[in-house]
């Protein structure tokens, strides 16, 4: 009989999600700074707001879309529940609640990581220092993931960790692709320009997939190939399919390894989603529309979270 409290499972799930979110966000900010130029050579920060559908919330707190404001909003602003600081704060709060469950190393690292972020002043983050800062956040998140892999006891809680991490990752990848595809596709008409290709590469870099993509496609970069890679490559850890596969496997382990009898609705839904992704090709996606497909995928991911939390964590 499992001894994992429903409330703790929920905490592990959100701990993983928040770290993953901070990790993705740092990547997106960094790549946007380094590789994304608009036609006038300036960096387009509005696209980041669109990526996370944060325009409305941003406008409540800031008057203008300036690099400083967008960076403050996403890095240090505690009013933004998804700023890097907030994400790591929630990760730490969840970790604090479940401290008896996680390793001392996991806790200590998150505790110190958050203390470090807390000490960062918005004024410290400038275009010059952004990349260094993002590197530190990515390293912090990846250190957390590494420590977790090496020290976290692999009972039911580990399955919830993986599900949280992978569902968040899947969501981040669909968002990234959605916004960038819309932004870049019109320019694909002027195919072949150096700027154009570099922007598709930037998208791959934001998902940490540039070099893996290169190995699959040594010479050519087409929008279809990039989209297909990010959606369906089963070996690329940040592709939608790969993340969904891992989440689905973690969910199955609850029944097969730990003998849980509940969670049938969540499993049915996630497996259905997974098999539709496996059967899907990039042509199908383009046929029904990229945005429409990604919308559907995001809906499925939200549904998976809802069912998981309802069936295991007693959430309404």
């Amino acid at each position, binding site marked *: *009989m499992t001894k*994992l*409290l*429903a*409330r703790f499972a929920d905490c592990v799930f959100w701990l993983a999600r928040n770290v993953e979110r901070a990790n993705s966000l740092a990547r997106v900010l960094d790549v946007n700074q380094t590789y994304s130029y608009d036609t006038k050579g300036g960096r387009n920060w509005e696209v980041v707001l669109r990526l996370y559908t944060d325009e409305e919330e941003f406008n409540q707190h800031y008057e203008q879309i300036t690099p400083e404001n967008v960076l403050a909003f996403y890095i240090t602003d505690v009013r933004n529940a998804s700023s890097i600081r907030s994400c790591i704060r929630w990760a730490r709060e969840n970790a604090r609640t479940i401290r*008896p469950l996680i390793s001392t190393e996991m806790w*200590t690292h998150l505790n110190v990581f958050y*203390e470090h972020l807390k000490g960062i002043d918005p004024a410290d983050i400038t275009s010059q220092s952004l990349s260094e800062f993002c590197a530190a956040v990515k390293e912090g998140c990846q250190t957390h993931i590494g420590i977790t892999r090496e020290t976290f006891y692999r009972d039911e809680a580990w399955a919830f960790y993986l599900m949280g991490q992978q569902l968040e990752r899947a969501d981040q990848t669909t968002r990234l692709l959605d916004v960038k595809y819309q932004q870049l596709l019109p320019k694909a008409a002027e195919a072949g320009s150096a700027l154009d290709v570099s922007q598709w590469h930037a998208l791959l870099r934001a998902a940490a997939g540039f070099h893996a993509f290169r190995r699959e496609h040594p010479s050519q970069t087409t929008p279809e190939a990039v989209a297909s890679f990010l959606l369906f490559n089963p070996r690329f850890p940040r592709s939608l399919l790969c993340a969904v596969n891992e989440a689905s496997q973690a969910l199955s382990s609850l029944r097969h390894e730990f003998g849980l009898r509940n969670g049938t609705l969540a499993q049915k839904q996630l497996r259905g989603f997974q098999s539709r992704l496996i059967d899907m090709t990039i042509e199908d996606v383009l046929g029904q529309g990229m945005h429409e497909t990604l919308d559907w995928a995001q809906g499925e991911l939200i549904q998976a979270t809802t069912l998981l939390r309802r069936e295991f964590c007693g959430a309404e």
Partner: protein
Amino acid sequence: MAAAQTQRQTQSAGPTTGGLLAAYDRGGYWCELYGNGKAPLPDGAELARRLNAFSFAEIIRRSQQATREFMSLGVTFTVYTDKDAIDRILPFDVIPRIITRPEWQVLEKGVIQRVAAMNAFLADIYGKQKCIKDGIIPADLVLGNSNYRPEMVGLKVRYGTYIHICGTDLVRGADGKFRVLEDNGRTPSGVSYVVENRHLMQRTFPDLVRDLPIRPVSNYGQKLAEALMEIAPAGVTDPQIVLLSPGTYNSAYFEHIFLAREMGVPLVEGRDLTIEDDKVFMKTISGLAPVHVIYRRLNDDFLDPEVFNKESMLGVPGLMRAYKKGNVALANAVGTGVADDKAVYAYMPRLIRYYLAEDAIIENVDTQICREAEGLKYTLANLAKMVVKPVGESGGYGITIGPRATRQEIADCRAKLKADPANFISQPMVELSVCPTLINRAIEPRHVDLRPFIVTGKSSWVLPGGLTRVALRKGSLVVNSSQGGGSKDTWVLD
């Protein structure tokens, strides 16, 4: 023997000149390292020698390192303000406190005896109430006590153990003798610091602890789990233990984490538990799982809104029904607050004699019971010399220390005493012993107490040493963490 000791003292006194402790002056108090002499006590000589090898720069560096590590590890309590949550550590002083083997043998026996008497007392007052009938203790002091729980009358607890975890506060006076200052038989805290202080000491001062015969403390969780297993309802072969915490906002949450982790049991809140058919269950990811033993770090008041505080959101409605039916064991039992009451404390020596037919191994601090005419008269006549304590308070609040009080404070105290004498006890001021303590760039004497922890299931076990709390403010006798107290690693030497 005495000669040999003197010689060893003389020898050890040699290298102290010029070292860290060279300028240390115990200020006329009994010192845990020096006794009432000029040289370290024989058992402390080696520690003193090693300390003297440190420069101030080095010990300060290590002390800062220790503080940083406590912050990183989150050995902290959290203070919540409107805006933020601030993590604080219990200040840690790096100079350990030593208890010798013969001293400890007496203390260990003494605190076990005390717990045995308290348990016998509780079984009696919730049973036949012989101590009242025999006139050992006034009826209203027991039955009229705000911590007396009539719900417990007639309820049997396994092995007659009500106080499974006890923290007894001991102090040492100018004569070098330990006395009991206070009993804590409800939900005593601080044990996590005993273990964490030791681990920290081993990491930051490997050169100080190396090869010394210090009795280990790291098996506390195991011993506690064993005792909790023993008290599981009869017939349960593989009992599920949980630790019930008020939640992450509680200032002792770190300790709850620590204990749950050390025992490997779920750390639950009231909302994680539910009662069905007078049995206790916890809400897991696959439904309800039975719970047999609850180590609760929640006061009686909050345990069950059906019976006690109706407003409590922290407890479990129906828990008392399950408890009364014997379907769950609670540690500590409900209603133990009568036994550690400051007024009942005064009767403890008599209660020990009454139940165990033994004299108290560790004496009380001489205590006047102000509810008794004689005690009140004596207290009022000697107010400037006495420490006056309200009986219901804890955490060092509401205390008037006569020799340190202003004339106004004495007058206020006198008025309160006359208005409600039964609410007070008084004691002579105990000149608490001191320990060398790192204060800024000097080693100064600071007053300490000692809280050993006694774990009782079928029988009692005492964690070697206990929590040494130190009053970091110069001259202060109040060691409570809420009032500027810190802690030290406590070494029982074999």
